[in-house]
């Protein structure tokens, strides 16, 4: 048996057994499902702190990149321009010139924000460094981490998804008008005449109702997809770290960090891509929304 095979088997074992053991495992800092409130008076959670750290870092990076702008870019400016331009061209290829230029401020922001937030959530200490909550007698009753991955908070992912849903409706109506918007949902697709048309109208009305349900489910799906992947990843890392003694706690989680780096990028891309596709489908009257359901 080669060394590579042994490593593969060990890795698979870790993947399968670790969560099970972690579930049974006793005391460790399991990441709670909900973000913790930091202030009694303000609706401020530890995930909101991460939101602003992420924004601060992005702005700082962009300010450094754009400090000495030159027409022939180099160094950080070159990287920043490459990142922004690549995303812009990608969205332009997907949605067309007009829609991309109109909506890039939104898609660019969500992509880089989600990506940065996802990666910040992987920094050691996020979700694990905080303070113990004690009762009046000094007994530990809980743990409050100072920071939490922004996308490991369902309120944040829901805020993004539902904000997009609102903007989606606004863009769809302003791009083609309310009549075309409704026609896109309810009107028969194809050319029917006479009795065929009479038969198709109720069918497409029913299809329209299904379409509305599908549209209503989209932000929910977007919310839970992003939250589930990011929360699940962070939870997996924590569970793996709880498997072994503290001194080598990093070891079982190490391979998964690489996977989480990939997941962080893929999830940012998936969220942005799906939003862009949903918008393209409603604004593009030449095509029918056949492949949009997930």
């Amino acid at each position, binding site marked *: 048996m080669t060394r590579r095979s042994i490593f593969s088997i060990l890795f698979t074992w870790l993947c399968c057994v670790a969560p099970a053991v972690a579930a049974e495992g006793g005391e460790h800092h399991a990441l709670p499902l909900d973000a913790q409130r930091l202030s009694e008076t303000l609706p401020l959670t530890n995930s909101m702190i991460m939101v602003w750290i992420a924004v601060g870092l992005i702005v700082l990076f962009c300010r450094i990149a754009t400090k000495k702008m030159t027409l022939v*870019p180099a160094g950080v400016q070159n990287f920043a321009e490459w990142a922004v331009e690549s995303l812009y061209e990608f969205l332009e290829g997907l949605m067309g010139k007009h829609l991309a230029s109109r909506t890039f401020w939104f898609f660019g922001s969500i992509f880089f924000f989600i990506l940065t937030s996802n990666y910040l959530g992987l920094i050691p200490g996020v979700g694990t460094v905080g303070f113990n909550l004690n009762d009046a007698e000094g007994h530990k009753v809980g743990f409050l981490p100072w920071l939490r991955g922004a996308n490991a908070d369902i309120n944040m992912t829901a805020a993004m998804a539902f904000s997009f849903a609102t903007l989606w409706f606004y863009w769809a109506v302003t791009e083609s008008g309310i009549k075309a918007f409704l026609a896109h949902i309810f009107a028969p697709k194809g050319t029917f005449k006479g009795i065929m048309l009479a038969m198709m109208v109720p069918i497409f009305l029913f299809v329209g109702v299904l379409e509305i349900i599908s549209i209503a489910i989209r932000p929910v799906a977007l919310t839970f997809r992003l939250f589930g992947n990011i929360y699940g990843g962070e939870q997996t890392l924590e569970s793996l770290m709880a498997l072994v003694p503290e001194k080598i706690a990093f070891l079982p989680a190490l391979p998964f960090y690489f996977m989480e780096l990939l997941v962080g990028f893929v999830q940012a891309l998936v969220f942005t891509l799906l939003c862009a596709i949903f918008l393209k489908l409603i604004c593009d009257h030449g095509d029918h929304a056949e492949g949009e359901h997930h």
Partner: protein
Amino acid sequence: MMTLLAEAAVEQAGILETITKTFGLNVPFFIAQVINFFLVIFILKKFAFGPIQEMLGQRRARIAEGEAKLTQIQQQLAESEKTTAAAIAKANEDAARLINEARTSAAALSEQKAQEAISSAQQILAKAEAAAKAERAAIAAELKKEFGRLVTATTTQVTGKILTSDDQARINQEALATVER
């Protein structure tokens, strides 16, 4: 029917409540995150992507301008090549015409010069002939005179008679007639 629907609605509400409680989804946090999100977008648009997009826009405009200029230059080059080709063709045509004219002119000049040379040669020849003729006449006259004097002297010595002018003239004429024959 209504009871069933009401029960279903209650059940749905229960499920929704369970989900929101389990995942920590609550209205104040959600609203706060929506406000947060729009602030995030505004800040990123204003301070992060704005300057980069502006630069990208400038570069795109510059590239477009460069491409437009390139097209213009290519057009100008094509026009210039066309003009140059036309000028070269015209120059070739003019050169050919000038060469032909030069050839014609050279031929005419050559002919003229040849004629002049011939005429000049003829004149020289005529003059030479005239001079030769004059010289010959002069020599002949001289000879005649000398011959007449010799004939007269000889006749005088032979006959011992002094000849008159008429005699001299007649003897000279006879002697000359004999010589010229």
